[in-house]
C-alpha cells in the first residue's frame, strides 16, 4: 500500500515539476521576444518563414483531405438520422459546434503535432546532444531567441491558418454530405449560417494561437531537456508529442468551460 501511494506521489511530483518547468520555459521564451537584434530579426524572419512552410504549407493537402472526409461523414450521417425525426434544422448546430468549433481545431492540432511537433522535438534534442546549444551559448547567443522563439511564432501562425482552412473545407464538404439526403445548397446555407456566429471565428483564432503555442513549447521543452545522449532523443520526442496531445485536449475542455 505504501509503495502504491509512493508511486502515485512520485508521478504527481514529476508531473508538477514538468508543469513548473514548462511555465518557466514559456516565460523565458516570452522575455526573449524583446531582445532580438536588427540582424537577428532578419534571421528569425527567415526561420519563421521556413517553419510556416514546413508546418502549414506542407500540411495543406492532409488537412484538406481530413477536413473533407470528416465533415462529409459527420454531416451525411447526421442528415440521414435527423431527416427521419424531422429535425434537419439541427444539422447546423452539429456542423458548427461539433465540426467547426471542436473537432476541427482538435484534428488540425493533432496533424501539426504529428508532423511538426515530432520534427521540432527531434531537432531540439539533436541540437542539444550535438553540443550546438552550448556552442550558441558560448557565442553569446540565447538559444531561446535563435531556436525556440521563431518556432513558437511559426506554429501559432500555421495552426491558426490551418484551422481556418479546415473550417472552409469542412463547410464545403458538409454541403456534399447534406446533398446525399437531397438537401439544396440554399437550404444548407441557411441552416449553417443561422447557427454560425462571429464568436465561432474568434474561438477558432484563440484555439489556433493556444494550440499552436502548445505544440511548439511542449515539443521544444522536451527536446531541450535531453541530457544523456542520442538514445534519449526518441524518448524526448514521445514525451513532447504525448504531452502536447494531452495539453490540447485539456485546453479544449477549458475552452468549453470558460465559454459555456
Amino acid at each position, binding site marked *: 500500500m505504501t509503495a502504491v501511494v509512493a508511486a502515485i506521489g512520485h508521478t504527481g511530483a514529476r508531473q508538477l515539476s514538468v508543469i513548473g518547468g514548462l511555465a518557466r520555459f514559456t516565460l523565458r521564451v516570452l522575455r526573449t521576444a524583446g531582445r532580438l537584434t536588427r540582424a537577428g530579426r532578419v534571421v528569425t524572419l527567415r526561420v519563421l518563414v521556413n517553419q510556416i512552410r514546413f508546418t502549414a504549407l506542407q500540411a495543406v493537402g492532409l488537412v484538406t483531405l481530413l477536413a473533407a472526409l470528416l465533415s462529409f461523414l459527420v454531416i451525411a450521417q447526421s442528415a440521414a438520422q435527423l431527416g427521419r425525426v424531422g429535425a434537419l434544422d439541427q444539422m447546423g448546430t452539429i456542423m458548427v459546434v461539433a465540426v467547426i468549433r471542436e473537432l476541427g481545431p482538435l484534428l488540425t492540432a493533432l496533424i501539426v503535432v504529428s508532423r511538426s511537433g515530432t520534427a521540432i522535438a527531434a531537432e531540439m534534442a539533436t541540437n542539444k546532444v550535438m553540443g550546438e546549444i552550448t*556552442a550558441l551559448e558560448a*557565442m553569446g547567443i540565447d538559444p531561446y531567441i535563435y531556436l525556440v522563439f521563431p518556432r513558437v511564432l511559426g506554429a501559432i501562425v500555421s495552426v491558426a491558418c490551418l484551422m481556418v482552412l479546415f473550417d472552409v473545407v469542412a463547410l464545403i464538404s458538409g454541403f456534399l454530405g447534406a446533398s446525399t439526403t437531397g438537401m439544396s445548397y440554399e437550404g444548407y446555407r441557411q441552416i449553417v449560417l443561422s447557427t454560425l456566429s462571429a464568436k465561432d471565428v474568434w474561438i477558432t483564432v484563440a484555439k489556433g494561437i493556444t494550440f499552436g503555442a502548445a505544440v511548439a513549447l511542449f515539443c521544444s521543452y522536451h527536446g531541450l531537456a535531453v541530457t544523456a545522449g542520442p538514445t534519449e532523443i526518441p524518448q524526448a520526442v514521445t514525451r513532447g508529442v504525448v504531452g502536447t496531445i494531452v495539453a490540447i485536449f485539456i485546453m479544449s475542455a477549458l475552452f468549453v468551460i470558460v465559454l459555456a
Partner: protein
Amino acid sequence: MIERESFLVQAYEMGVEGAAPLVFKDVDLRERPDHPGHRLDLVVEVGAVTAVLGDEDSGVGDMGRFVLGLDRPPWGKVLVYGTEIADLPWRKLLIFRRRLGYVPVGDGLLQNLTLAANIGLPLQYASDHRQKAVDERVDELLTMFHLADVATLRPAAVNEEIRRRSAVARAIALDPDLLVLEAPFDGLTHRAAHEIIEHVRHTRFGTPRTVVITAQDLGPHVIPLMNRLVHVEDGLAMEGLE
C-alpha cells in the same frame, strides 16, 4: 565596415580595465579536489599565444569551459578581464561572452547551417548591425580562411580541416581580444595549423590578440609558433615542455 565599439560596447564595458585577460587562481582542475598544493595558478599575458598542455586526466580539457563560464571549477576562481565569469547572471554572461572567441573540441558548428551562415551567426545575433554589414564581414572571413568555394556547403559535406577553419573564422567574427581554442590542430597538417595561428594572432586593428590553446599535445612544427608553453601536471602549471 563593422566597428567593434558600435555593437560590442556593452560587452567591453564589463570587466576591469587593465586587468589580465585570463587568470586561473587556485583552481583545482581535477574531478576530485584533494590537496591544496595541487591547484593551478596561471596568469595569461596580453597579446601572447599561450598553449596549455596536459594529459587527458589533467583537467586541461575543461579549462576552455571554465574560461567561457560554461562550467564552474570545483575549486578556485577563473577571472576573465578581472571578472569572475562563473558568477555573472545569465543575461550578463551572454553579453560578456561576446568579447571572447571559442572553438570547442571538434568544431561546434551548427549542422543545419551552411559554413557561411555559421560564420555569420554571432554577427547576426550578438550585434545590432544591418544584414549588409554582416554579409561584408562574412565575405571578408571566407576570403581570409579560403572558404569562399565551400561557403554554401554544410559542415557534414566538408573535411575536418575546412570545418576547423570555419569554426575559427566564426570564433573571430566579432574580433575578440581573447580567443580560446580547444585541441585546434588535432588531425590537421602543419601548413593548416600554421595558417590558423597566423590568422588569429592579430585583431582587425592589428593589435596582438591573446590566444589560449588547450591540448593534450602539440606537434613539433606547431610548438615554435607559441609564445608560451605551459604543461599541467598534478594540477600544477609548469613553464615549458618536459
